[in-house]
């Protein structure tokens, strides 16, 4: 098989590769793959991995502040899961990076220089316990929708990682929903916390799914990821699925959504909504979101502070 592959011309390999993914076969780490497939996966998976890790930071702020012992345990478990997701995904990315001789440490450097992006849209200040609940409920809810979309990904290691991750994400959403429910049934103050959080995070939730097309921000990776069967639905389809799942739930709790134009159009069977400010996404993607730098700094500080630990653990050069 390998001998055969070596003898084949590039375009034959590509044809065979496309035929394999069309037939629903999984590509494995050591299989031949086109460069732009590898490149797309590296970008996607390392961004996903680092987003899980960076995403643990805003929630971590609420770990000690969680108001009961059970809530403390719940949010600790969730944040630990997120770090675990990051670890799992970075390993998948590392395998893909092997031909380039790059390692975890290179990914970290890329993160610090801004070459490696993370999902910045949620890196705002998390101001209240309501935000902690809402992150679990809707941010993880949105993440579930976008990750479920890739469960059938043509790249086997990523698909398998996502299966494990999605199973845990369901618990995260339940954990968030439980916090929100307790607040929604609580005092005036507690109820208001939830409304404030919805108003505050709504636009970020819409931005999270990405632009409907490349017209909004100048580029979009969705075409190539669909072509290679890494994902199935478009950004817009995912956003629509988010509306369908959550709009009713939010309204039924007696809350409002900060978009007066939001409605379901029966004729076209789509949600009509106020487009978020796509200009913001461009700015945020440059790590210039409200808390992006502060959170990146936490990782920079720890990287610097632990330099001696890495050195001490490094295998000795004899």
């Amino acid at each position, binding site marked *: 098989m390998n001998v055969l592959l070596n003898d084949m011309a590039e375009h034959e390999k590509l044809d065979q590769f496309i035929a394999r993914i069309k037939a629903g076969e999984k590509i494995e780490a050591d299989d031949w793959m086109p460069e732009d497939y590898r490149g797309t996966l590296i970008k996607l998976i390392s961004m996903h991995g680092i987003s899980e890790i960076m995403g643990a930071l805003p929630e971590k702020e609420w770990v000690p*502040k969680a108001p009961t012992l059970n809530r*403390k345990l719940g949010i600790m478990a969730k944040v630990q899961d997120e770090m675990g997701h990051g670890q799992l995904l970075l390993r998948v990315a590392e395998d893909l990076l092997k031909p380039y001789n790059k390692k975890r440490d290179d990914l970290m450097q890329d993160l610090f220089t801004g070459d490696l992006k993370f999902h910045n849209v949620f890196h705002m200040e998390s101001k209240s316990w309501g935000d902690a609940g809402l992150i679990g409920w809707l941010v993880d809810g949105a993440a579930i929708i976008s990750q479920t979309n890739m469960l059938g990904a043509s790249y086997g290691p990523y698909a398998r990682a996502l299966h494990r991750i999605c199973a845990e994400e369901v618990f995260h959403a339940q954990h968030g929903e439980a916090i929100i429910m*307790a607040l929604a049934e609580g*005092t005036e*103050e507690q109820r208001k916390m939830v409304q404030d959080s919805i108003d505050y995070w709504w636009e970020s939730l819409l931005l999270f799914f990405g632009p409907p097309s490349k017209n909004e921000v100048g580029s979009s990776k969705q075409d190539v990821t669909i072509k290679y069967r890494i994902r199935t639905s478009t950004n817009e389809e995912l956003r629509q699925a988010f509306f369908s799942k959550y709009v009713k739930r939010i309204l039924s709790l007696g809350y409002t959504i900060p978009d007066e134009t939001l409605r379901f159009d029966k004729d076209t069977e789509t949600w009509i909504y106020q487009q978020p400010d796509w200009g913001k996404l461009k700015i945020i993607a440059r790590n210039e979101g409200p808390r992006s730098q502060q959170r990146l700094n936490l*990782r920079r500080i*720890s990287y610097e502070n632990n330099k001696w630990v*890495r050195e001490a653990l490094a295998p000795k050069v004899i």
Partner: protein
Amino acid sequence: MENNSSLENTAIKELLLQLADDDFIHSYRGSEWLGLAPHIEEDVASSSIAQDTMGHAAIFFKLLEELGEGDADQLAHDRPAKERRNAIILEVVNGPGNYMEDPDYDWAFAVVRNYLYTQAKAIKIQSLHSSSYEPLAEVAQKVQMELYYHLMHWKTWFIQLLGSGHEEAVSRMKAAIEKTLQDFQGVFSLGHYRVEMVKQGLIEDEAVLLNKWIQEVTPVFESVGVACSIKVGMVKGDGRTGQHTEDLEKALETLSEVYASDKTATW
């Protein structure tokens, strides 16, 4: 007769408070490290340990609740520093700076404190297996299972860093050992009711526990070339009697920020 049984009860409650408060603050210091540990694998492992430890605190608070001492959440969140019974060494900050802004934390101190405390806790839990207070003897079983992994984890770090031969690592670790030991006696203190606790067979005597601990850690110290006869002190005072530092007060402010915003609300 009445006096005797109330004294008995007080000793049980005091012991439970010590165990609960130790783990509560220890878990908090552990959770402050999340996202800041030397690598991601360690973040996952140590946050799991912090979570287990908070679970242990919750178990001890629950036992207090069952004794009619009040709601477990209230006990955890609504007692001022002067009523806390944790050992002072466990409240000491991880390093200068806030965990959300500019944490200048010292991994050597984390490793040393975690290892020495986990070993001490393991010895206490072992002693609690034969506690005359049944409910405590029962939970000791559950706690011990998890503790086994915690101890292995921190002992490995301790040995790796000290045995690395890396100059900075070794000197940082030695400094951390000195800092930790000078207040570590507080972990073994049983407070004002020490005599009653031992008399009732709730737990073994301080000196016995300390001795067992020294016997466990000495060979480990020796294996990595730290020459020692291990001596512990209580420089900052005895946390069991309510003596505490500003570090604890600040920690409690954070730990009960949301709880204190409405103590009667359901969260």
